[in-house]
């Protein structure tokens, strides 16, 4: 699994291509799994497989909102982070249907890719101030997304194997 630094060195097209594969990878991972298996948390704290899918769906929406804000502003917006565990609890991820959540993720992902593919030259350098990571350009966000996908795909596999 490439690190953030390794992803950062990849050409834009390669990182975009990585983002296009995630929908399929998630589909393959949850295929044939029962709702009970998808809802099983490996321990009291770590997410079940379907919570991971729901997290990716909602994160995709917030990436979209961030990109829109960055593109609409002349100065770097300050990005206030969301508490992912709180969202998992409040939005009742464990009651979701994983297949439907995945379909929604794929739609959001298509929209994100359309936005990113429309960027030209200097636009990739537009950015915002991330609460913990400092200034992040849209190019940095692309790297982060590629890594974030890997990371959660791995987490999902582990959850299905009952591992935290």
């Amino acid at each position: 699994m490439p690190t953030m630094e390794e992803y950062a060195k990849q050409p834009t097209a390669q990182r975009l291509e990585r983002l296009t594969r995630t929908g399929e990878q998630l589909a393959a991972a949850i295929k044939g799994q029962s709702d009970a298996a998808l809802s099983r948390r490996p321990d009291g704290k770590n997410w079940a497989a379907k919570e991971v899918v729901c997290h990716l769906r909602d994160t995709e929406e917030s990436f979209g909102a961030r990109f829109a804000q960055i593109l609409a502003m002349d100065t770097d917006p300050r990005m206030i982070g969301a508490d992912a565990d709180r969202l998992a609890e409040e939005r009742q991820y464990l009651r979701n249907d994983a297949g439907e959540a995945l379909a929604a993720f794929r739609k959001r992902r298509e929209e994100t890719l359309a936005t990113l593919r429309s960027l030209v030259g200097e636009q990739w350098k537009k950015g915002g101030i991330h609460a913990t990571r400092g200034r992040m350009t849209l190019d940095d966000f692309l790297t982060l997304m590629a890594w974030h996908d890997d990371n959660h795909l791995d987490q999902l596999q582990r959850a299905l194997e009952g591992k935290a």
Partner: protein
Amino acid sequence: MPFSYYARLSRSQQAIYRKSDEIVEVRLPQPAALHPAVESLTTALASEDRVTVQHATDRLIRGLTDALGLPAVEVQVLAARPHAKWGELHGLYTVERGKTPTIQLWMRTAKQRRVVAFRTYLRTLLHEVGHHLDYALLHLRDSYHTEGFYKRESSLFKQLVPERRTPWPTVDAWFRRSPDERLARLAQTPDQIRTAIAGRGEAALGRRPAPQAWAPTEIVCYLRDAEEMFGRRFADILAMDEPALPEAGPAERWASERQYLRHDPALALAHFRRRRGETLETLIALAPEAWQRGGEHPQRGRLTIDLLVALMAWHDDNHLEQLTRALEGRP
């Protein structure tokens, strides 16, 4: 009450000052006819392109001088404002015998070189136009900054940019109520929802009154998620100067993507209550002037905290009514 420098003026200058101070308004014959030119200026500034701003400014100035039957004035739109210890120069009116008077305007701030906000730019333009008016329309021999002068500038501004009503007529009623009344309204909502859904089972709460109309559970989930969104907007507005506020939702999309119909309504209410408590804490802690902070929404235009709070009060009313209808099986 004249400004302090009045005492230092000669008698004839004081006479000019008094005359200037007495005139508090300049009426435009048909202000609405100039609104499209004002609109173009807003767009031009957003483009950040100096030539575009120059054209839009020319158009507005020509409209103004024609409307008031004034001699022409030339406008030069320049880039970053000159600055010195005393501050930044926003605009300058120059008149020389035998030449067309000139207004110079700077469209970027001195240090950060940011494009100035539309209202600031227009105010500066009207300020310099005010000097032109003093000579050409009011026939004053000098143009002083008197209280009357500033009132005339404001009168022009108000005719060109009519006071914004809220974008939603139904929100207006709440907008006119005091902040305390609005906050009191927001504080009641969780209990009102609890009373409305008390004793109803999850199956009943998950029933849509019509295929396209939300079930009670969906309404509660939506209020919970909208509260999170409002919280984020307040945080954005308080953390930044005039941020762009991203478009959220649409509500229908949230309902289907987040699968509201599968949610536990009691839990959704508990989480809405917690979020609402946090919103109220934030709002109560704000200084009154902070309510005028705002951000730009892509569809709704500028939204202040003041307006968002009115909107939330209306939003609560609206969805409580929808909830009552849904519980009675009516869409």
